[in-house]
């Protein structure tokens, strides 16, 4: 069973008929080829599939693609502007806040939602915003520092 939807993904508009049981995650990865969004647990516990839906961080593995109808989606691929990475991406690289990288897209998208809402979060606010994103390689210190660094650099600007 299909339904027609109209959705904006990373500033590009799509109009198409989509299977009603397809998840937003599958639509992004399989139909649009945006494989930066990862599937890990598939049960809404790890946050690897986090994208922004109308600016809010959501787990794309728990949302039907048809629920993106008339909404705006931002994925990790939508952050860089032309040749310039997003300050969060730069900061994650600079801080070495990456090991295997599988959680990174989700971490950055959650951090992006936080900074959009609160440009100057303290450590506990960062921890709270990233509580739904799990890293299994190493730890969270560099990740939290990387987010904090963006807040600091934007404050001095």
């Amino acid at each position, binding site marked *: *069973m299909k*339904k027609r939807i109209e959705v904006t993904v990373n500033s590009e508009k799509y109009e198409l008929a989509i*299977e*009603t*049981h*397809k*998840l937003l995650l*599958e639509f992004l990865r399989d139909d649009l080829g945006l494989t930066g969004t990862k*599937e890990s647990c*598939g*049960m*809404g*516990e*790890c*946050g690897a599939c*986090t994208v922004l*839906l109308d600016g*809010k*961080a*959501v*787990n794309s*593995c*728990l*949302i*039907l693609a*048809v*629920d993106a109808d008339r909404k705006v989606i931002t994925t990790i691929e939508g952050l860089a502007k032309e040749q310039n990475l997003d300050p969060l991406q730069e900061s994650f690289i600079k801080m070495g806040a990456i090991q295997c990288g599988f959680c990174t897209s989700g971490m950055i998208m*959650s951090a992006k*939602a*936080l900074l959009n809402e609160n440009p100057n979060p303290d450590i506990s606010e960062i921890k*709270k*915003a990233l*509580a*739904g*994103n*799990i890293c299994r390689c190493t730890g969270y210190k560099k990740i939290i520092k990387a987010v904090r660094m963006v807040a600091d650099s934007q404050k001095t600007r």
Partner: protein
Amino acid sequence: MKLRKFKYYEPQGLEEALSLLDRFGHVAAILAGGTDLVPLMKQKTVQAKHLINIKHLTELDFIRGDSMLEIGALTTIRGIEKSDFLQKKCPLLRDTAGRIGYVQIRNVGTIGGNICNASPAADFAPALMVLDATVEIASVDGKKSASINSFFLNPGETILDKNEMITRFWIPRTDEGTRCIFRKVPSGNSSGLAIASVAVLSSVDKVSGVVREARIAVGSMAPTPIRCFKTEKLLVGEKISDEILNIASQKIVEETKPISDIRGSREYRIHLIKVMTKDALMDIYWRNLS
């Protein structure tokens, strides 16, 4: 992980949703936030032939009211957490919302879903129970209401019939001087489900130190969230002392039926609920008397 196919409906208003529910309720699932339902469908614990997506019923997304607070069933957990209106009118619900899951879940999960899934660990349940909330239930036959304190029957089971859904919560205003606290120890994984939780609403006479009112409800301590009426009764009319708080925290254990599961042992839950209840009561009384 994929979803199995289902027949899909997207009602544009409550009436349409209710008539669909009346026709297909016995084989349909209602999709609100989906943060509980979608994982259950992926695991095939829920095998719905029909899916009724009620996300478009914006008429059920509201927070309003004065002496009687009203919250629509489709209000997101995040909407409650961020509500300035509730900060003044009912900080207990706002505090509770902020402790549920994590941002991605709170952004889509709804208060109606949290309640009607009837998890023993549903965090809004103890809060709504001490607030003496009323649940509005709708079906094609009309609307009716029930106390939240008689809403839960078993894990995953409520008084709702197959053709009924929750549409709103009514929350009476609490008396001046009454304080509320929600405490929870979440499990270590990111879902943050409660190993044990407690909501306390209480007031004490500032001069005599005698408890005027006490309401206590707990989560993850029995097959459903429960009100602890015996403990409440024991406290009311007593002068606050360490001894009475110890007796109350012992009584609460007698009222609950905790089990051992993946999140914690029975013994640990008993320990937690004693400590958390006493701590919450002390916090309320200390702030009231000082």
